[in-house]
């Protein structure tokens, strides 16, 4: 794999690269990370390294008595998400900004298939001092022991910081996290955050599922008398018998004269109906190259959880998902957990992921039965700088997809190729109804994420910014 990357780099170099592009590529090239799922463990609080921990982080219960910090079970969560959001809605009515954030710390649970852990969170704002620090240096800490001034006494890999790809895996969650059904979250998103409802849900597909309804009619006996149909039948019978002398003058009809045959009574009876529903296939594509370290990954994955939840609600759970991770090569992973937690490393080739999506769609003829949604999250950096390979693949995807949404988190470490070549390609205009692009900064918060989702999924034909 390493060799592949080098070969690719050589080829790209021969084609010519700007110095910045080369920097970005080299940084990823010399990166020795792997894509494993970070190992998390409930540590002994006292055993944690306390570098840079402020003195106020120490307290007697965890430190002296070694008592683990409390961890809430789902039943002890005092208020439900719904209640909190209801309160939040009232705030808006009273003219104050909302305070509850959901989804910021969302991650899929290990267990159930469509469970996500929702941590409603908030912050109490006050006037407090901010730090002014040069970006590359961190605050000083205390230390003790041997060593000359200036001597380096230890190193810590940069990646460890946010547990790399587990930027999303923010530790093991706080005391008040709630496990919520992704479906419920989708409902909340739709209702409370006014994400649009899909008007036309596209192709419908028959399912091997039946509903029972009082749709069939039956003469003579049954569960429910269909009065209108019965009356019609009675009229028919009486006309056929010539018992309608007054039909030329309707006001003379006397219904009490009608003869009613038992077989004229029409009933409705239960019957088995085949059910047709539209359903969706969602591809989530995530760039897990080295440059995605930290915030960008967190945002992309957070947004994908929300989109997933929303679609799940929109399609009444008739959603199937495929997860694809890519660096220079793409691979499909079996579940959201792996998708969510895989660490970042390696280079970037957006085209690889698009190609894999197209292959899957072709091989499995998915376009016949499904409404296909493709969401791709990246930091916008691509070794394939002008999209020479990515753009044709993208166009192929657009031919079969209901929507392709690309979210780009800019981190200012170079690389905005994806945004640039998509914009320049004219595809946004050509497939205005199908392709959406959303570019956000890496300081985006949850409301920005939801804003982004609206942009990605809205049905209005606007050229995305």
């Amino acid at each position, binding site marked *: 794999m390493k060799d592949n990357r080098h070969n690719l780099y050589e080829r790209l170099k021969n084609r010519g690269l700007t110095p910045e592009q080369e920097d970005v590529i080299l940084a990823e090239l010399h990166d020795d990370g792997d894509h494993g799922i970070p190992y998390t463990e409930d540590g002994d609080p006292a055993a944690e*390294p*306390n*570098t840079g921990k402020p003195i*106020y982080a120490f307290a*007697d*219960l965890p430190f002296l008595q*070694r008592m683990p910090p409390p961890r809430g079970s789902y039943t002890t969560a005092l208020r439900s998400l719904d209640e909190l959001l209801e309160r939040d809605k009232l705030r808006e009515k009273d003219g104050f900004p909302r305070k509850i954030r959901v989804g910021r710390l969302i991650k899929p649970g290990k267990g159930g298939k469509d469970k996500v852990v929702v941590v409603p969170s908030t912050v109490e704002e006050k006037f407090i001092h901010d730090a*002014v620090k040069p970006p590359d240096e961190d605050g000083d800490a*205390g*230390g003790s022991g041997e060593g000359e001034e200036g001597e380096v006494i230890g190193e810590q890999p940069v990646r460890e910081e946010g547990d790399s790809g587990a930027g999303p895996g923010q530790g093991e969650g706080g005391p008040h996290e709630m496990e919520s059904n992704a479906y419920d979250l989708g409902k909340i998103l739709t209702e409370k955050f006014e994400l649009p409802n899909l008007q036309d849900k596209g192709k419908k597909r028959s399912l091997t599922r039946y509903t029972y309804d009082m749709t069939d009619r039956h003469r003579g006996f049954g569960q429910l008398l269909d009065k209108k149909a019965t009356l019609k039948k009675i009229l028919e019978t009486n006309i056929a018998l010539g018992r309608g002398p007054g039909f030329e003058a309707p006001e003379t009809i006397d219904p009490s004269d009608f003869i009613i045959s038992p077989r004229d009574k029409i009933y409705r009876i239960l019957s088995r109906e085949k059910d047709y529903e539209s359903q969706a296939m969602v591809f989530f594509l995530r760039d897990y190259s080295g440059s995605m370290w930290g915030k960008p990954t967190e945002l992309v994955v957070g947004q994908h959880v929300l989109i997933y939840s929303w679609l799940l609600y929109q399609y009444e759970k008739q959603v199937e998902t495929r997860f694809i991770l890519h660096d220079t090569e793409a691979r499909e992973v079996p579940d959201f957990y792996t998708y969510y937690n895989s660490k970042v490393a390696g280079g970037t080739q957006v085209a690889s992921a698009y190609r894999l999506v197209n292959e899957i769609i072709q091989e499995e003829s998915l376009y016949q039965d499904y409404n296909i949604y493709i969401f791709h999250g990246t930091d916008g950096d691509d070794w394939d700088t002008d999209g020479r390979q990515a753009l044709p693949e993208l166009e192929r995807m657009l031919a079969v997809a209901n929507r392709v949404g690309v979210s780009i988190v800019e981190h200012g470490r170079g690389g905005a190729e994806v945004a640039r070549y998509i914009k320049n390609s004219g595809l946004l205009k050509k497939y205005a109804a199908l392709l959406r692009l959303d570019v956000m900064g890496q300081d985006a918060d949850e409301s920005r994420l939801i804003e982004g989702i609206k942009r990605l999924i809205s049905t209005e034909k606007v050229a995305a910014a």
Partner: protein
Amino acid sequence: MELIDQHTKSIMEGCKERARDAGLRFGDETLEYIVTNRDLLELSPKMMIPTLYDYWVHDVEVLKERGKYELYPSNPYETVINTRPAISFYNDNNPDWLNVMIFYHVLGHIDFFQNNVYFSHTWDMDFAGQALADKRLIARLRSEKGRWVDYVIEFARSIDNLVGYHTELSRMDRPQTTRAGKRLDFYFDVFLQSEKKVRIGDYIKEIERYNESVREFGGVGEEAFFSEVTQKHPEFESIFQKSLEGKSKRKLDLPQFLLEHSDFLNKEENKWMKSVIQVVRKTSLVFQPQIRTKIMNEGWASYWHETLFLDDDRIDGHEVAFARVNSGVTAMPRVGLNPYALGMRLFYFLEEMADKGKYSFAFRKLLDANEREKYDKGGQEWRGRDFIFKIRETLSDFSFINTFVDQDFVNENKLFVAGRRLNRQKQVWEYFVKSRKAEDYRQMIIDGLYHPPAIRIDAEKSTDGDLYLNHVFEGYPLVKDFIPNTMLGIEFLWGGPVKLETSEVAAATEPVRPPVMMIPGMPLQPQPEREDYEVKWQRVLYTMEDRNLSKTILT
């Protein structure tokens, strides 16, 4: 929550006896509870005060990425809470010997709470009981006013770090001044010097005249003196009276100012809000000293749990287990700060120094390092102890660190300031020994101490129903994201436009970084350290009016 069993309680009582014999002083009654994980879940958002008022934010995970300790200064996992009687919390399955150690630690804290002057405003207060009364008040209001109570709590809490804690403290122990004494002080200190600007010779003559008049007339000497003064300066009396009026105005903190001067809060239908604000303010004041004495408090408690445990005859045979736990708590980390270890070492150090008589003028005069080292004028056994008892009574973290962390202490404990920098080439954070100077070490600790911003009310600029707040610039800006909502709350409580003058970064000069040459397989040149990072500041004015925030640049 359950009380500890009788057996464990008897251990506690034994600890109390021994602690008292060693000189600690604390109230007789204490309550010890066993807490489960579930209890903690409810207690920790309420700062371990079981009776604290209910507030919905307590039920929600609070984001703590930024400024955690500035926003929520009270530690949610403390073992002892400062109330009468003192309450402490324990794990269910602690072995007896461990309980002995923890009890001594707890008693150290209780002694500290009840003797350190920074806590003096809490000394005659049963806070748990007070909090219960407040909780009921808020519950009652909530049943009448609904969610508006929560808004008022929210807005009051958003300024609860601006309480005038030090003003409140300084009022506690002020010596009584007589009116006569005030007049005399005013005459000599202000009137003659600032108003009349008399020459030194005349000033001395005036003092002489006063002394003579006291000698001559005894008890009424001062009156006689002033009768002459009023003949000479007929305007004196009125100027003095005027100065008294000015003085009598108390310095108000922001919550107090709103309580007294907000038209909105003083409307009949809004008066209930004032009691809510008072509850929040009072609660905040109770927690203020704790965070300002963290190093001392933990150091003091650690000093005593170690000292008393080792002398305790009841724990024979558990020394090794104790040593393991104790070293985990009180070891100095290679990198990082541990308030337990730092405070404890400083107390030991001070005791030793005082034992040798090193806190004396004679010692300070010594310049010879050799002689300083050998200096020992001690001998009386309890001198060092007395000294540290005095310190636990009178200092806070800032004065403790600022006064006593000197080069001797830093050298003896091999302390240093550890820097952290990014090595771009290796993609690692490097920790390095940045400085072993006492002043740097001191500064590093002081920089990390809790320090809420100073926000003053500018009466002169508060016109037309505006409230003008002035953030006194101390080298740090305010967290920008928090300004809008905080000001929104103040505007609500004030009932009119609110202005905030503060400083922001206008431009930061980035040093020019030489382009990075990356040659595969070759090491890079080391990056220069970023010493030349400079910040330019500007004063800005935020205005919150009708829930809309605007900003103008002042300079």
